């Protein structure tokens, strides 16, 4: 484990069984995460992008050991989390927290905002009495809410304010690492920017490390230092944020970027558009060879037979494609940035 890596994931697998019949016999597996390896450096934000069902949320939850049956190694500051006992893991969770997507479903409607934010302090025995009260007030101010709102219930807050409560709850235990699972996708445009800036400010102030999961590539570019692109349970490309958007190499990344319109008609109307055919195949029975081959315009024979490995093609730039040999790419013009 390299010193500056806070998280290291090696060959992570997570299969969910598909059952059928009265006996609930297992008939297949949903291969949600199918051999994923990456690391996150201390203090950085790693963006994890992909379309629905690509396994990005599952990956985040596996890192936090929220599923049983995860295979592979997940290290946090050099400690292999998969080997920890339940009680040890419970204590470890103080260091790693989760911010959820849906601010309407992730807060208990029968608890007040103050109780929600203070609960982690009680669970981990971090503060009592006067100190507890002060810390909760401090957390309210930290996420730019007023402490007098502590007695209100979740339904009295707007979506953006609820997301602030969710953030305060996650940060109450002073974690080192936070998984942000689509934290802004349920919010309005003007509120999204507020939350993104808040997360960025908190990261700087508290020295946090983020795994930022999102499907919106523009949001991810804005907040991440490095970005990993997932497709059907695998990472297809991972590199620095600016490099990914300037020089995407995997055909899927190129198509994904070209599908996102830029809110400026002068720039957008000159971009090359690649329209992918069909839908993402089922993760129960992914295609043989490269998983992207049925939708890939460049696919050749080897792509249908052999699964490509994630290989280094530039400075911290890894791509899993048979056709990409170097950072020059496949040789067709890459999509404009």
């Amino acid at each position: 484990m390299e010193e500056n890596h806070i998280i290291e994931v090696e060959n992570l697998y997570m299969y969910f069984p598909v059952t059928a019949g009265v006996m609930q016999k297992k008939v297949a597996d949903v291969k949600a995460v199918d051999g994923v390896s990456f690391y996150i450096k201390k203090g950085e934000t790693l963006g994890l992008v992909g379309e629905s069902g690509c396994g990005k949320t599952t990956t985040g939850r596996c890192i936090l050991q929220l599923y049983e049956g995860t295979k592979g190694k997940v290290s946090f500051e050099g400690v292999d989390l998969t080997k920890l006992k339940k009680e040890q893991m419970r204590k470890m969770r103080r260091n790693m927290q989760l911010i959820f997507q849906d601010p309407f479903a992730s807060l208990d409607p029968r608890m007040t905002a103050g109780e929600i934010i203070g609960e982690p302090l009680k669970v981990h025995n971090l503060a009592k009495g006067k100190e507890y009260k002060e810390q909760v007030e401090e957390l309210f101010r930290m996420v730019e809410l007023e402490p007098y709102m502590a007695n209100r219930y979740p339904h009295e807050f707007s979506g953006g304010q609820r997301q602030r409560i969710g953030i305060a709850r996650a940060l109450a235990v002073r974690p080192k690492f936070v998984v942000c699972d689509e934290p802004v996708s349920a919010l309005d445009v003007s509120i999204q920017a507020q939350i993104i800036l808040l997360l960025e400010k908190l990261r700087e102030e508290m020295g946090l490390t983020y795994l930022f999961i999102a499907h919106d590539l523009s949001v991810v570019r804005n907040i991440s230092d490095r970005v990993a692109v997932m497709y059907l349970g695998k990472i297809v490309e991972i590199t620095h944020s600016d490099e990914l958007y300037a020089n995407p190499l995997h055909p899927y990344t190129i198509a994904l970027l070209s599908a996102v319109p830029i809110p400026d008609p002068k720039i957008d109307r000159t971009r090359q558009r690649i329209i992918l055919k069909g839908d993402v195949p089922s993760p129960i029975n992914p295609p043989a060879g490269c998983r992207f081959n049925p939708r890939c315009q460049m696919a050749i024979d080897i792509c249908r037979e052999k699964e490509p490995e994630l290989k280094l093609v530039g400075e911290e730039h890894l791509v899993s494609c048979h056709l990409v040999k170097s950072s020059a790419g496949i040789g067709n013009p890459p999509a404009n940035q």
Partner: protein
Amino acid sequence: MATVVQDEKILEIKNLKTYFYTQEGELKAVDGLSYYVRKGESVGLVGESACGKSVGALSILRLIPYPPGIIVGGEIIFQGKDLLKATEEEMRNIRGNSIAMVFQEPTTSLNPVLTVRRQISETLELHRGMNKNESLQETIRLLKLVGIPDPEKRANDYPFQFSGGMQQRIMIAMGLSCNPALLICDEPTTALDVTVQAQLLEIIDDLRAKFGTAVIIITHNLGIVARYVDRVNVMYAGRLVETAPTEELYANPVHPYTIGLLSSVPRLDISKKKSLRIIRGLPPNLTRLPPGCAFAPRCDYAMPICKKEYPPLEKVGEEHYRACFAEISKFQKQEK
């Protein structure tokens, strides 16, 4: 893109007011909205949740549930006729026929217990008087048009047997079944992944070019607007705050809300180093709208008059209007 646009206005909405009467009081969802759509033109309605963009569109087809909602005033002139004065019988002839609508969530807008074929052929038989066999052939042709593979077989499937993207294609096929003069798309791709979103918007745009159908796209996504729309109407709290041809609006926005919205969107082509600007505060509660301009409490340029009077739409350029009292030169200084 612009080749199919003609000068003739196919739809003109004048001072539309749609209110809802709720327990909390009168909710002015749409409060004096005016805009128009030309033949073959693609017009965007943008704004955040609850700005009245969907209610404005549902009002065109008179699909506002009553109670609690009611259209209290205005005119909706479609092909020279005021739809608000039309009888229910006349409206039934227009819905799905000359004006069609594609709703946001295909999963909830398709009928789960009817096959796709039944749902599409219903419109064909009702509005175009086709018999069973003709409507089947037409259904298959439409499904092919929107890119459903193997349409002969798939026509007999039920909605749940299709993915979200495929369901939305079916909605579009249904919308196009009677060659409408106007297609209203209410957040057509919000529930879908980006690659599927691109597929569908290309289909809609191709069909517009082919058949000259006018399109209204309702969305909160400023990227989609930039790519697919000829003219944009920006809404806030039930009113139009700015309207302009797309390129003009993005190059030269002159309402503080539009300016704020454009600079608060993360962009694919701008890296982390350039930070976002935010619009402070929250969107207003529509049952307790402040007097004067609804945006004034969040506006950096608000003056005393903004809190008293509502600014009228003023012309600032070719087809470019805005509702704001502040001088334009103020924003431009700030930008530089």
